[in-house]
């Protein structure tokens, strides 16, 4: 557990941290057929990033993070389909504000509890959101989903095209901005208090950190980012379905993050990438075996490789250095 990046580490951007962005730009030029999958992956990376902030850094175990993702998606979708707001940036901002407000409201409640009660509350809140989206058919479209989402060109200039090129670059831009923000947070003293709370809550209390307020702030920021991710999904798909809410998307997101590595910032990049590409290739051909494989992988990661893919990579690098 030595490779946690955070406050106290050198905050300059290292060479390896540029690689994901170079790779993303290379994909844009080299693999034009996979851009819609690419946009999906970028969206989920953003979503995973938001979970990493509270799960990996602040240590809040939640089973209901999809509430914010889904809420953001529905806010953007409803504003566009029912109220005629079509500016993509405005939709993202609205989704961020609303999801952030939901984050403050629910965080104020769940962060007062801990353990099973907290887990249960996050799950119940996500379930309530799903139930509302399911039953409020006139507004949300219910089980049929919300269609008719129209999105104006970005800044009035870049239209969302059929090949997903605009969508891809748009997702990449938003992800880059959010990554920069998250990275700043993690390297800041605020980020250090979060990690401190994760490691030893009582001691942080003792040295005078307002634990509850710090956690609430982190929770709200995370909710905002998740809301933006949801709104991005709504914009690029021009459709919002019930599958963005509930326990299953939360669980799936957790799987992605664990697969990549929790509390490492870039685990949120690697996990969704591997998961969604594998899903694209395997899930359609062998749906049952796919789920079995996911479950098996989760069990194996927990038992043998707690750091996920990046943790394994770190261990390999360390061993290689030792051999030399």
């Amino acid at each position: 557990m030595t490779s946690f990046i955070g406050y106290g580490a050198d905050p300059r951007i290292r060479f390896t941290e540029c690689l994901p962005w170079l790779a993303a730009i290379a994909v844009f030029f080299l693999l034009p057929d996979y851009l819609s999958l690419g946009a999906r992956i970028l969206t989920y990376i953003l979503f995973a990033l938001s979970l990493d902030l509270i799960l990996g850094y602040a240590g809040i175990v939640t089973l209901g993070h999809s509430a914010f993702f889904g809420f953001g998606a529905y806010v953007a979708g409803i504003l566009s389909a029912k109220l005629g707001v079509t500016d993509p940036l405005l939709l993202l901002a609205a989704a961020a504000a609303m999801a952030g407000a939901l984050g403050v409201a629910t965080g104020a409640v769940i962060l007062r509890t801990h353990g099973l009660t907290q887990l249960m509350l996050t799950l119940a809140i996500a379930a309530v959101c799903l139930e509302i989206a399911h039953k409020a058919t006139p507004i949300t479209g219910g089980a049929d989903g919300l269609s008719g989402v129209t999105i104006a060109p970005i800044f009035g200039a870049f239209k969302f095209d059929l090949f997903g090129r605009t969508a891809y670059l748009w997702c990449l831009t938003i992800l880059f901005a959010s990554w920069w923000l998250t990275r700043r947070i993690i390297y800041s003293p605020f980020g250090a208090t979060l990690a401190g709370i994760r490691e030893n809550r009582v001691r942080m209390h003792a040295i005078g950190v307002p634990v509850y307020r710090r956690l609430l702030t982190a929770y709200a920021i995370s909710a905002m980012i998740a809301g933006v991710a949801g709104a991005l999904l709504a914009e690029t798909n021009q459709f919002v379905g019930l599958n963005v809410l509930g326990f299953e998307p939360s669980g799936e997101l957790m799987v992605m993050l664990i697969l990549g590595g929790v509390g490492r910032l870039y685990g949120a990049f690697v996990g969704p990438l591997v998961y969604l590409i594998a899903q694209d290739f395997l899930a359609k051909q062998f749906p049952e075996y796919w789920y079995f494989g996911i479950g098996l992988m989760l069990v194996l990661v927990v038992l043998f490789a707690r750091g996920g893919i990046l943790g394994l990579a770190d261990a390999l690098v360390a061993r290689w250095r030792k051999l030399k």
Partner: protein
Amino acid sequence: MEVFLPSLVSIAFHGVAYGMILYVISVGLSVTMGLMGFVNLAHGAFAMAGGYVLTSAITRLGLSFPPALVLAFIVVAAVSVLLERWLYSRLYDAGELEQVLFTIGLIFMAVAAAQVVFGMLQQPVLLPDYLKGRVSLLGRDFPLYRLFIIVASSVIIAALWFGVERTLWGAMVRAAVDNRAMAQSIGINTRRLFTITFALGSGLAGLGGALGAEIIAIQPTYPFEHLVYFLIVVSVGGLGSLRGPFAAALLIGVSDTACKYWLPEFGAFFIYVATIVLLLWRPAGLFGRRL
């Protein structure tokens, strides 16, 4: 009033039957969580397994209903012993996150396995003739099988309570829940106690799943769909408590039935909201101690 009273009776009846099943399934979860502090989200998978054992024992092996029920208990308990010894026990000291992830992984595997073996469709429950038919109670007709569920669950619950509150084994379990280190130091083999209790709890879940297969449909998504309900029973009832979850299960069974009867357009909305409010009011559950 003419319509209201009979519907109240009907809701109470179906609600109690549902609540009983919820309790039989969830009580094992409450005890194992209280005893070992293990967050076992995969508990519903044991209940589903019990349901599948029952239906396939009847349709494929040609067993009659009562032995199939017993078989459901035995098979699930036996499988859970293996799982506990090999897998769960490795994670007793791990954090909450690891336990949550591990058991979610188990759910995924159980769901996928059920899909491959039994297909997506709901399993039909073939009831024996003597459990079909209807009985009339307070001027309304009720399916006989629901009455059987209530009676059978009551017997199981009475046996369980007697076991935990009146036998030496029960005293050891209660001692270990209260203070594991102390129980260990006066010579209780807590390791073995865990395994036995876990097997019993899982077996009961299997039995509950089998018994309630007609109320809670046996299909591959079972462990996901009903997870929230089992967790609500446990967290509202209070961890490690025996009677708390019983009250919670009945409460949820009746109010869920009532909501679905009177306000179907709201679905399970009220149950979730009530749970949130209750847990805010009493974070350790209605009858729980601060752990």
